[in-house]
C-alpha cells in the first residue's frame, strides 16, 4: 500500500485520450446507417449519464427526474426553432440558460432533502414536466409530439451527427473530469463521504450540491436538444419517468463515481435492447434478467468491478 507521498493519481488524461480514439476509430466498425444511429444514441445517453454521475456518484445525491431536464432541453430548442424560427446557435444557448435557471430555482429547496425524500421530489419534478409537455398541445404538439427543424442546413445525415455528438461527448467528459480532479471535485466527494466533516472543513454543502445539480441538468438539456434536432422529432415520452429510471440505471450499472463507468453504462444499456430485439417477445425478460444478474454479481457496477479485477491480476503477476 505504501508509495511515495505526492505521487500523482492515475493520470486522467489517458482515459480521455482512449475515449477519443475509440470514437474516432469506431466508424471503421459501423457497417450501415442503423449502427451509426445506435452509436449516436449511445453518445447522447452518455452525455446525460456523465452529468448525472456527477450528481449521483460524486456528490452522492439522487435524481429520478433527470429525463425532465432532457425533455426541457429538447422542447426548448425545438419550440424556439420551429415556432419562432430562431436559428440553432441562438435557440440552444438560450434554452440551456433557461434550464440552468430552472434547475437552480428548483434545486435550492429540494436539495435540502435527503435520500428518499429527494428521490421523490426529483421524481415528482420529472413527472410534472412530462405531463405539462404532453398537455400544453398548442405549444408542444401534445402527446404525439412535434417536428423539429434541423440544427443547421449543413448538419444532416448520420455521419456528421456522429462526429458532432462524439465531439460533444469528449467535451462533456473533459469538463466532468476537470471538475472531479479539482478541489471542487474533492469537495463533492467529501460531501458524499461525510457531509458533517465536509461542513467542518468549510465546504458549503448546499452550494456544492446545487452546482452539481445544475451542471448535470445542463448536460441532460444539451443532450436533449441535440437529440431533438437529430431526430427531427420530439415526443413527451423523452421526459418520462421510465426514461429517468433508464438513465439512473445506466449510471449505476456502469459504476458510480466513475466517469467512464457512466459512458460504458450508457453504451451497454443503449445497445443491449437493440441487440435483444432479435429475441422479439423475450426482449424485456432478457433485459430484466441481464440487469438483475449484473448487479447481483457486480454490485459496484461494471467498470469498477473490471478495474478491480484488472488491479488484482496485476498484483498477482508481481
Amino acid at each position: 500500500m505504501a508509495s511515495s507521498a505526492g505521487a500523482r493519481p492515475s493520470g486522467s488524461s489517458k482515459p480521455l485520450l482512449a475515449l477519443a480514439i475509440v470514437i474516432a476509430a469506431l466508424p471503421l466498425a459501423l457497417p450501415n446507417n442503423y449502427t451509426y444511429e445506435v452509436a449516436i444514441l449511445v453518445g447522447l445517453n452518455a452525455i446525460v449519464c456523465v452529468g448525472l454521475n456527477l450528481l449521483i456518484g460524486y456528490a452522492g445525491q439522487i435524481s429520478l427526474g433527470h429525463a425532465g431536464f432532457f425533455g426541457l432541453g429538447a422542447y426548448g430548442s425545438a419550440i424556439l426553432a420551429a415556432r419562432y424560427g430562431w436559428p440553432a446557435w441562438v435557440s440552444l444557448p438560450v434554452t440551456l440558460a433557461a434550464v440552468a435557471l430552472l434547475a437552480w430555482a428548483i434545486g435550492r429547496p429540494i436539495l435540502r432533502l435527503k435520500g428518499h425524500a429527494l428521490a421523490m421530489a426529483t421524481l415528482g419534478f420529472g413527472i410534472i414536466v412530462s405531463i405539462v409537455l404532453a398537455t400544453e398541445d398548442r405549444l408542444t404538439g401534445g402527446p404525439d409530439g412535434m417536428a423539429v427543424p434541423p440544427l443547421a442546413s449543413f448538419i444532416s445525415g448520420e455521419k456528421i451527427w456522429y462526429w458532432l455528438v462524439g465531439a460533444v461527448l469528449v467535451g462533456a467528459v473533459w469538463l466532468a473530469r476537470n471538475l472531479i480532479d479539482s478541489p471542487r471535485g474533492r469537495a463533492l466527494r467529501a460531501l458524499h463521504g461525510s457531509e458533517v466533516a465536509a461542513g467542518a472543513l468549510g465546504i458549503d454543502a448546499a452550494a456544492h450540491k446545487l452546482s452539481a445539480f445544475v451542471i448535470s441538468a445542463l448536460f441532460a438539456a444539451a443532450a436533449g436538444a441535440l437529440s431533438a434536432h437529430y431526430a427531427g422529432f420530439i415526443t413527451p415520452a423523452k421526459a418520462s419517468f421510465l426514461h429517468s429510471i433508464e438513465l439512473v440505471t445506466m449510471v449505476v450499472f456502469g459504476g458510480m463515481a466513475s466517469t467512464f463507468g457512466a459512458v460504458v453504462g450508457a453504451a451497454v444499456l443503449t445497445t443491449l435492447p437493440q441487440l435483444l430485439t432479435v429475441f422479439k417477445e423475450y426482449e424485456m425478460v432478457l433485459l430484466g434478467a441481464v440487469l438483475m444478474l449484473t448487479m447481483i454479481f457486480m454490485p459496484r457496477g461494471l467498470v469498477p468491478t473490471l478495474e478491480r479485477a484488472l488491479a488484482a491480476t496485476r498484483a498477482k503477476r508481481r
Partner: protein
Amino acid sequence: MLEQYLLSGITTGAIYALVALGFAIIYNASHVINFAQGEFVMIGGMATAAFFEAGIPLPAAVVLSIATATLVGVLLEKLAVEPAREASVVTLIIITIGASILLRGLATLVWDKKIHRVPAFSGEAPIAIGSATLLPQVLWVLGVSAVAVALLAWFFRRTLTGKAIIAVSHNRLAARLMGISVRRVLAVSFGLSAALGALAGVLIAPIAFTSWDVGVMLGLKGFAAAILGGLGSSTGAVVGGLALGLIEALGAGYISSAYKDVFAFVIIIAALVFLPNGLLGRRAAERV
C-alpha cells in the same frame, strides 16, 4: 359533486394505501425501495383475469392470484435480494428495477399485451348514497382494505412473526442476536408486501381494468404515498395513500383532470420541503 370527488378519492386512496404499505413493509425490513411493487399489483389483476377466463370461479381466482403474487414476492427475495444482501442500497434498488422489467416481460409472455376485464365482485348496478352514486365494487375496495389494514395492525402487534419484523426494522443485529431469523423475516416481508399489492390489484381491476403495464403508475403512486406519509411508518403509508387519493380526486374535480397528477406531485413536493420526513415520519438524528 364534492361527495363524488371525496368518494372517488378515498377509493383510489385505499388502493394507494395498500400499495404504499407494501413499500413500507419491505423498506422497514431491508431498507430497499422495491421498484417491483407495482408489478405485484399487476399480477393480482392479471392473474385473476386469466384464472377467471380459464373457467375458475371468481373467488377462487382471487385467492389463487394473491397466492401467485405472494410466491413471486418470496422468490424475488430469495433469488434477487438475498444474494445481493451485502450490496449498497442503490444497487439493490437497481436489482428491483431489473425485476420489474423482468416481471412485465413475463406478463406479456404468459398472458398478453391486451387490456383485460375482471367482473365486479357483486354486480355492477350503481348504488345511490345521497347525491353520489357508487359502484358496489367501491364498497368492496373500502371494506376489504379496511379489514386488511386492521389485520395487518393485529399481525404486527400480536403475532411473534409480526413483532419479529418490527424488531428487524429497528435493529437487524440485535434482532439476530435475539434469535430472530432475518432471512425468514425478509421472506415474509416480501411475501406480505406482494400479497398486499396483489390484493390492491384485484380490488381495483373491476373498476379500472388491468393490463401488463398497470403496475408502473400504480407502483409510482404507491411509492409517492409511502414517502408522503413518512417511509418508515405503516400508519404513514395508509395516511399518505388516502391523502394522495383525495388530493388527486379534488384536483381532477376542481382544477383539471389533465393536471390532476401535476397538482398531486406539487403538493407532495411542497409537503416534503416543509416536512422532510413525511407527514408522520420520525426525525432521525445523526450521531457524530
